[in-house]
């Protein structure tokens, strides 16, 4: 599905991600764990094209993504839910989701999106900025799903969201995977959520993958050691 090979990203001279190799299989959910500043967000942002990459390649269904601009990557099948959600706060919930339809050429929001997130249907005409954090997160996911991605990237989706909703979100993400048959990559700091949602756990440190285990074999203590400051 998504194949990242010898991939590197740098800000000027300082390399954030160096020669990374990572494969995301069809229908798989992987969680990338790591402390602050280890390159999680940089990886996500560079995959969607917000930050240019320095070398290596990223292919999605054998299509090379690195020369493409953000909107072309979306058309190629990448969906992105950024850290801090970044919904369009002055636009209504409905309009927010409609922006995600751009690359598909559709005009009407598919009804199964509202089935996944019934609360968004209730709040259709509210401005995005007036939703709660959890609702905004759902909106950001719905907006990304509207472009019918084959890979969904979520950058720290649990940040600033209350624990009961985090559990709910793990369930929703799995449901989305099962229903739509896509692959999901989440970056996380919360270990319990990662263990809950993912099939495979990866730990990133100083821009390198230092651990890559199926969730069944994941040893909480070893991973916690990587996450503790």
């Amino acid at each position: 599905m998504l194949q990242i090979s010898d991939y590197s990203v740098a800000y000027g001279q300082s390399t954030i991600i160096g020669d990374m190799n990572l494969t995301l299989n069809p229908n798989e959910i992987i969680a990338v764990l790591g402390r602050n500043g280890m390159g999680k967000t940089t990886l996500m942002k560079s995959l969607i094209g917000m930050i240019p990459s320095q070398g290596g390649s990223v292919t999605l269904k054998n299509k090379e993504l690195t020369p493409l601009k953000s909107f072309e990557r979306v058309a190629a099948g990448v969906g992105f839910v950024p850290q801090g959600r970044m919904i369009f706060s002055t636009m209504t919930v409905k309009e927010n989701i409609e922006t995600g339809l751009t690359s598909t050429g559709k005009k009407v929001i598919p009804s199964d999106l509202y089935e996944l997130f019934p609360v968004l249907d209730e709040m259709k005409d509210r401005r995005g900025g007036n939703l709660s954090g959890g609702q905004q997160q759902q909106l950001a996911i719905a907006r990304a799903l509207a472009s019918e991605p084959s890979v969904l990237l979520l950058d720290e989706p649990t940040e600033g969201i209350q624990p009961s909703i985090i559990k709910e979100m793990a369930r929703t993400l799995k449901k989305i995977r099962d229903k739509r048959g896509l692959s999901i990559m989440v970056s996380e700091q919360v270990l319990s959520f990662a263990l809950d949602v993912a099939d495979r756990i990866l730990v990133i440190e100083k821009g390198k993958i230092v651990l890559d285990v199926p969730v069944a074999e994941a040893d909480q203590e070893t991973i916690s050691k990587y996450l503790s400051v």
Partner: protein
Amino acid sequence: MFAEYTASELTSIFAMQGFAGLILFSVFVLMALGLAIIFGQMGVINMAHGEFMILGAYVTYLVSHLFADYMPESLYNSYFLIAMVLAFFVAGALGAFVEWAMIRHLYKRPLDTLLATWGLSLIMQQTYRTVFGAREVGVVLPDWLMGSVQLTDMIEIPINGIFVMILTVVITIGVAIMMQRSRLGKQTRAVVQNRPMAAAVGINTEKVDRLTFALGCGIAGIAGSAFTMIGSTGPTSGQLYIVDTFLVVVFGGAASLLGTVASAFTISQAQSTMEFFLSGSMAKVLTLLTVVGILMLRPEGLFTLKIRR
């Protein structure tokens, strides 16, 4: 200052100055709509906006002459509609070209856009002077726009003014609907809010920028078309309006079209009524002072959206 007039004279003065204010209001709104789209939505201060308006005026002038010279006289009455559409597309096309050649390289440098568009305005002015001559030109109005409506003995209202006002209302409503409902409108608003994020949900931001800029300039072209009905067109006519128009946009709150309309109304009415009783520059001073005062209390302009940011 009111003492030397009788009550009925005062009423008609206010009515007629009020109406003159409404015509000024129309030009302000049409200019400010384009400017608000470009400045409010893209953060680009387009100093050449007045020249785009005058481009529309010159297009209208050319079309009226073509009609007078080459078309049967019976068709002359309808030249204005064709001129208006043409003005929109000519100004819009030039806008798209300018965005492509110049503005897009300067998006992160607001002061440089200011300087660059000011330079552009000088170039355009000189081009008009070379092509059309320094002297102001005017169009011959078709018959149905001549004359005025006599309301009472003392109050009469020119028909061309009424026409310009109706035109303004139609275009304003059209633009408002477009920004709210159409796909380009929604994409524009998304790009304005968060450019990298808009790209990350699949919007081609460069295309949206170009279309938005072209649209703003196109509306300025229409404003120029309307302008030919109430004033004569010269190379520097656009400059006279650009400062007032910026005042309108800032005062109204750059993000809100309703605010633009409301502030254009306030400023034009205040200007036009005071100009009759005081001198023109005193009127301007008073308006500016009031606007500055209100902006100190409400820095984001008259109308702002109440949301969490």
